[in-house]
């Protein structure tokens, strides 16, 4: 049985390796935060996600799209259908009128979030050649996940005296090379929260990260809940099957 034991260890090693591989990718490390949505039973903090939606709408949405998300997805962070309809209706989305001419109409909950620019070229023309990435899956598209986004948003600082920044670049402790084209998007009191939470940079960074984590994985809570049931069922089945195996083999051993 030596083979079995060592083979199990090898399998674990194989599973652990990708972590080592990704850790080597940047010299940056991101101080881990406590997230409501981490862990096998994690759920999205609804209030934080709603505040984060406000930060996204009032700050990020000026430059960044979340083109894979629908307005109806806001139901998943606790907004009512009426609220979602009102939010959507306040946005005009491109359409085609009865004469076949380009037109605009108020958005419906079934529409995708409207992007701040019609296409990538238009975005680059507006943003001095830079392209603000779509944020739909940004949490999954960064090896550091939510921790990386949070630290980046809260990581703006004065550059060290010996560092010379490029034209139109900003210093950030948590961006590769420490130079980022995005100016610090958040400052204390940048938004006014309806629930009275003080809008510090850290608070807003945390809230909008929670919102974007939801947008990246709107299925997460369903997935984890289903996962708990599936794993419990499989453990039960393993027990039943093993008992049956013992019984079948009893006359051989």
């Amino acid at each position: 049985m030596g083979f079995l034991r060592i083979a199990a260890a090898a399998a674990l090693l194989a599973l652990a390796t990708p972590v080592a591989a990704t850790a080597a990718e940047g010299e940056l490390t991101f101080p881990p935060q406590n997230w409501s949505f981490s862990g096998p039973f994690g759920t999205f903090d609804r209030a934080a996600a709603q505040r984060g939606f406000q930060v996204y709408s009032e700050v990020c949405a000026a430059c960044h799209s979340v083109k894979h998300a629908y307005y109806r997805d806001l139901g998943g962070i606790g907004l009512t259908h009426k609220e979602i309809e009102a939010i959507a209706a306040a946005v005009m989305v491109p359409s085609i009128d009865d004469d076949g001419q380009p037109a605009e109409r108020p958005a419906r909950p079934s529409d995708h979030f409207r992007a701040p620019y019609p296409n990538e070229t238009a975005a680059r023309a507006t943003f001095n050649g830079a392209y603000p990435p779509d944020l739909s899956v940004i949490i999954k598209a960064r090896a550091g996940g939510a921790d990386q986004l949070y630290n980046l948003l809260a990581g703006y600082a004065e550059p060290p005296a010996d560092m010379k920044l490029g034209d139109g670049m900003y210093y950030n402790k948590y961006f590769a090379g420490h130079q980022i084209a995005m100016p610090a998007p958040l400052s204390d009191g940048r938004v006014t929260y309806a629930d009275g939470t003080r809008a510090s940079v850290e608070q807003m960074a945390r809230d909008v990260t929670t919102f974007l984590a939801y947008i990246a994985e709107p299925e997460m809570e369903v997935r984890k809940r289903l996962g708990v049931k599936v794993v419990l069922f499989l453990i039960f089945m393993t027990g039943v099957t093993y008992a049956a195996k013992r019984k079948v083999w009893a006359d051989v051993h």
Partner: protein
Amino acid sequence: MAGLHKSEFENPVIRWVDSRLPIFTMMQKEYGVFPTPRNFNYLWNFGALAMVNLVIMIATGIFLAMNYTPHATMAFDSVERIMRDVNFGWLLRYVHANGGSMFFIVVYIHLARGLYYGSYKMPRELLWILGVVILLLMMATAFMGYVLPWGQMSYWGATVITNLFSAFPLVGDYIVTWLWGGFSVDNATLNRFFSLHYLLPFVLVGVVFLHIAALHITGSNNPLGIEVKGPQDTLPFHPYYTIKDSVGICVYLIVFALLVFFAPNYLGHADNYIPANPLVTPAHIVPEWYFLPFYAILRSVPDKLGGVLLMFGSIGVLALVPWLDTSPVRSARYRPVYRILFWVLVLACAVLLVCGGKPPEGIWVVLSRVATAYYFLHFLVILPVLGKFERPLPLPESISRAVLADGGGGGPLPGGAAAKPMEKA
């Protein structure tokens, strides 16, 4: 009646079919009463697990293909649409994506088991070679599947791997252009990869069928590595091994479910959630984890053609193992030196796996060179020489004797248990 098969089934419908097309008799023979060595350990589960995994991949893949759009401008978005809009699309995609990883875990263990217990030796050489063909087909299929989401790693992985063929003198560049269907990885490449990714699994099914057909001619090897000498050494496949495989399948599904539901992106690469961009090269282009050992071998050679040949050679050498290993003893249990060197080989593969994920500089280059050297040394030098000099431990007389000796108690097989057909089929 002339021309009809004499069926032993009593159910009139089954009997009618079986007399004309004896598939029930065949199933009964190959999976019901099929005489199987009585001393399998749980490592003999992994063939069945690979079969289950292949079925899961094909089933989820067919439904994914219904919702996927193989076009360079739409592929990435269509995958996100599967994740968000298709009912349980996220489950389909995560099962399929992690199923690829599970498939390689299972097959690598299956392969290691074959190496440890000498399952490749006479008369099972062709069975083993078919296994190597299966591995190659799996790799081609997995590689092309990883390209389909059209993220950054899809695109750049496809670029790096297809470019390997340019190392061949004279024809290299023509081969690459031919593979791409153009002058860079683009929509034509994506389309043909999708087509082949759908085709190859069915080719795989065909080769798996041959693999099992060959297995049922020679019969299975077993942990002792000695041949079955008579009915006292075997058990009917059903119910003994159907139930033992079921236990393994349950445990396998638990590991699978933990990945799918709680860490679905753990084995993936974050960059593949960034849409493919031919103008931006990722800082480190790395393949999926199961290719990392081969990637490390490729990069351990300073010469491009040499690296490519060595990488393909690392799989090719497996096909030659039945003739490279000169020892008449199969199981490592009775080969005291080989047993140690087997684990050195596993260690070398693990080192290659780690090195493949690191940037090719400093200590990682040295380590991957040492591990690559050992890998080839093991197969090309140690296996042929060791068989001549190693003094094997005494082999047990027969499977039943060995089993009953260390099983403690038991006794002879109860009457009838060995030949009872599955009556309830």
